[in-house]
């Protein structure tokens, strides 16, 4: 990176742009209530007023512009927080860029004519057009201000994009930045950036061929774009700062099945490594035959400790999506929503993290009730099955009553909404619901421990176990010891524990499949992620039979339970390769921590890359590798001022360690204690 970029990065980290922030957002709600506006009108008014209220910021030397000046999203419904607006999906950026907003406006005007007798469609299309006009008016204001400041380069660019197709890679980046920011202004968060190396490569390739850009110019532009994505993360309202969904998916195959890796794939990996910030979050699609050189490049990124890339295995994900009703070409085009949930850009209005299958809670109830009733072990398993079925049914009932708020501007950037005169909120090609499968290792360990000690070895009496659980193990140290240290554990390639894990996911998949496809409208997608539930459930569930006391954290995503010493990463991968991923397609990564001591010599990058290849060859689905130094984390906790730029992976995203809430810091530290 050149000096200007380093300075730019520093300024963004110092949040110097905060000085441009206005105090209050426009009062849109009052206006909506006065007019008694429909939901559609409210959404259109929101983006209009937000665009109008934005003031123009063009900083000296800046080549990709847009800085948020309104600090938050105003309400448009008296009884609904803006956080409930449509989020966590991915636009069709390829289409949006190549058509430009004017192209989309023409499509909307066409449709408006066709649907003139349909009042609902007419209102939607009018609102879509108004939204486009609002964004274009903001771009025009930027262009005008740039002109006045003598920044003819910026002015020229913003007169062309996002209205029209970009004429260069630079314009494509600017257009994406502008449209993405407009979605945030319209209240949509967790806006995925999709298959960036696919839709951007056309523009870059043309510039490299014609000589408009050298490779190094392109890298500088890309770095500036990535730095700009880190600007407005503080106005964003994720659970924790950093959880903002700016995820990019690289590599994989094209819609026709041919290899999609191109020079931009590698360039993104290089530039993100050099920029070293929390955004964008990088995902890489690989398969059993992926070139080790590409994996080495990706591993260099891992060695920087940014908590990405996260890997997805095409050999597993694509067939799984097809098995869940996705067309093969669409399945090949998958990306992630924000964290890890698989989604088709432009074609999915899916609620990918609608609810959470709380495995430890269901298993705990089954064990307690089963032991009290004198069940056999199969009896307990049956209670687990029933518990999972009931939860799935309950979630499905709620989901079927769901009503999404209209999103006319987001609809502009999706496939066929405009063309069909139907807002995104009433559905697109895929409208499925995803459920996390949280803390599976802890729950499986509990079942395996009960099976071994109560039913196979008979060295723990059911009544004693119940009493121990009720007492949170106070006075039952010997029982706790047996359950915790002398029981099979997930992550050691031990079938006694792993079979419990696969049983949980089989039950989960059975429960979802039983719900059917609701007349072809939607299915429930089981997943393997935990999001923040490994912390949320800690106090919600009392002592559990794997020897865990109330308040202690559960396992995150697909990872062995905390405080468990496992044989190592190969066994962990072997364990997780046993899950039938064809039936579990919502995503959720195997999560492994590496000590940074791993990277002490030249060979180590290649060896970690081989580990990633092994993940794919064993048929696992998704992988997240994190690198960190335990001592550094401890020091950062004691002296945050010395470690402001220390980045860690939290769940589906990376954040600055010192900006996390204490409970997340603690959990990260605890995970690294058991790093490989």
């Amino acid at each position, binding site marked *: 990176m050149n000096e200007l970029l380093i300075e730019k990065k520093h300024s963004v980290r110092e949040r110097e742009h905060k000085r441009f922030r206005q105090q209050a957002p426009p009062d849109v709600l009052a206006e909506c209530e006065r007019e008694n506006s429909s939901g559609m009108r409210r959404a259109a008014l929101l983006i209009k007023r937000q665009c109008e209220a934005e003031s123009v910021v063009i900083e000296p030397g800046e080549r990709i512009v847009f800085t948020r000046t309104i600090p938050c999203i105003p309400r448009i419904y008296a009884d609904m927080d803006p956080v409930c607006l449509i989020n966590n999906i991915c636009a069709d950026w390829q289409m949006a860029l190549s058509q430009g907003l004017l192209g989309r406006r023409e499509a909307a005007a066409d449709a408006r004519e066709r649907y003139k007798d349909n009042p609902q469609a007419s209102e939607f299309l009018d609102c879509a057009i108004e939204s486009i006009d609002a964004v274009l008016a903001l771009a025009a204001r930027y262009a005008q201000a740039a002109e006045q400041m003598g920044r003819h380069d910026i002015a020229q660019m913003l007169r062309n994009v996002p209205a029209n197709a970009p004429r260069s890679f630079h314009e494509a980046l600017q257009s994406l930045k502008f449209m993405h920011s407009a979605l945030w202004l319209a209240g949509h968060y967790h806006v995925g950036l999709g298959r960036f190396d696919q839709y951007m490569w056309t523009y870059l390739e043309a510039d490299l061929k014609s000589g408009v850009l050298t490779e190094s110019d392109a890298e500088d532009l890309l770095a500036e774009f990535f730095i700009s994505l880190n600007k407005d993360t503080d106005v964003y309202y994720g659970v924790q700062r950093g959880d903002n969904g700016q995820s990019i998916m690289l590599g994989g195959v094209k819609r026709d099945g041919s290899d999609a890796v191109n020079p931009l794939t590698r360039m993104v990996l290089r530039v993100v490594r050099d920029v070293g910030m929390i955004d964008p979050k990088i995902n890489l699609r690989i398969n059993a035959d992926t070139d080790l050189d590409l994996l080495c490049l990706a591993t260099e990124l891992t060695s920087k400790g940014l908590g990405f890339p996260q890997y997805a295995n095409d050999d597993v994900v694509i067939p799984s999506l097809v098995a869940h009703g996705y067309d093969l070409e669409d399945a090949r085009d998958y990306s992630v929503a924000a964290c890890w949930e698989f989604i088709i850009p432009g074609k999915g209005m899916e609620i990918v993290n609608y609810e959470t299958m709380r495995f430890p809670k269901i298993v705990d109830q089954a064990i307690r009730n089963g032991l009290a009733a004198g069940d056999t072990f199969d009896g307990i398993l049956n209670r687990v099955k029933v518990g999972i079925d009931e939860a799935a049914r309950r979630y499905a009932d709620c989901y079927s009553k769901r009503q999404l708020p209209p999103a006319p501007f987001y609809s502009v950037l999706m496939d066929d909404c405009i063309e069909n005169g139907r807002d995104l909120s009433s559905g697109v090609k895929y409208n499925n619901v995803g459920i996390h499968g949280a803390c599976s290792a802890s729950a499986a360990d509990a079942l395996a421990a009960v099976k071994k000690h109560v039913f196979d070895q008979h060295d723990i009496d059911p009544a004693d176990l119940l009493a121990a659980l009720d007492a949170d193990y106070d006075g039952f140290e010997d029982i706790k010891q047996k359950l915790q240290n002398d029981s099979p554990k997930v992550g050691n390639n031990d079938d006694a524990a792993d079979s419990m894990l696969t049983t949980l996911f089989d039950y989960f998949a059975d429960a979802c499949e039983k719900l059917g496809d609701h007349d072809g409208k939607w299915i429930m997608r089981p997943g393997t992620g935990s999001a923040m539930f490994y912390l949320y459930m800690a106090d919600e569930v009392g002592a559990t039979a794997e020897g865990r006391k109330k308040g202690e954290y559960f396992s995150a995503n697909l990872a062995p339970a905390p405080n468990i010493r496992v044989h190592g990463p*190969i066994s962990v991968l072997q364990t997780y390769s046993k899950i039938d991923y064809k039936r579990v397609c919502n995503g959720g990564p195997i999560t492994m921590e590496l000590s940074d001591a791993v990277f*002490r*010599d030249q060979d180590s990058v290649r*060896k970690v890359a081989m580990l990633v290849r092994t993940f794919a060859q064993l048929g696992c689905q998704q992988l997240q590798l994190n690198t960190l130094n335990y001592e550094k984390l401890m020091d950062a906790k004691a002296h945050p001022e010395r470690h402001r730029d220390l980045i860690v992976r939290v769940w589906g995203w990376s954040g600055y360690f010192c900006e996390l809430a204490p409970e997340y810091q603690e959990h990260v530290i605890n995970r690294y204690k058991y790093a*490989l």
Partner: protein
Amino acid sequence: MSEGIIFDIREFCIHDGPGIRTTVFLKGCPLRCKWCHNPEGMSAEPQMINSAGSRRIVGEKYQASEVADRLNSQADILCANEGGVTFSGGEPLMQSRFVKDIIDLLDKKLHIVLDTSGCGTHSDFQMLAARVDMVYFDLKLIDRQAHVKYTGVDNDPILCNLRALSEFEKPFVIRIPLVPTVTDTDENLSAIAKTVRGLPGLVRVDLLPYNKAAGGKYASAGMVFDPGYDESAQLNLNIDCFKKEQVEVRVA
């Protein structure tokens, strides 16, 4: 079938030989190196370790077949990644019969490294060296008195085994723990360079810079760390001693 005491079987030990490897750490070592950072490997018996508020027994009895089964279950993965199995410690020569029995049961395609201090009988050393693909041979000090002072044992059998190794023409890597003011002196490094120069089978010399966290584990094993040298002294990373003798050298 023999049994032995192991204190860890650790996967993905990527610094213990080529490719992705699993390392078997055998408990018990005849040396008492002042800088040893695996104090739990010294005693040949299982022992209690107290760390971070939890107690656990370190050192477990295994049958040779149990160990071999576990390693064989990952043989395909290890081989596909240019790796295999490393026997380390402690000192594997102290349980040479057990190690031999494990090796004889291992999948023939597994690449095997013996990571040894060389301190053992000639026949034990020959028995294991003949069965492995590569040897990682630790050399600390050439001066006999210094060797006794800092490791507690005479280096004569070690140097004897080193010569025997070169007669096998088995590929081997010399590893030198660089301990400030003890092993990192110009005299010692050039004496080592002269000793290993031109030995058939020598792949290279690895210099392992001093690990300041060496003393960290002593307290939890109920032991006292008393190195008897200045841990904070500047390391002498003199690779020229080796270049002069045309010995390939790497700093790990």
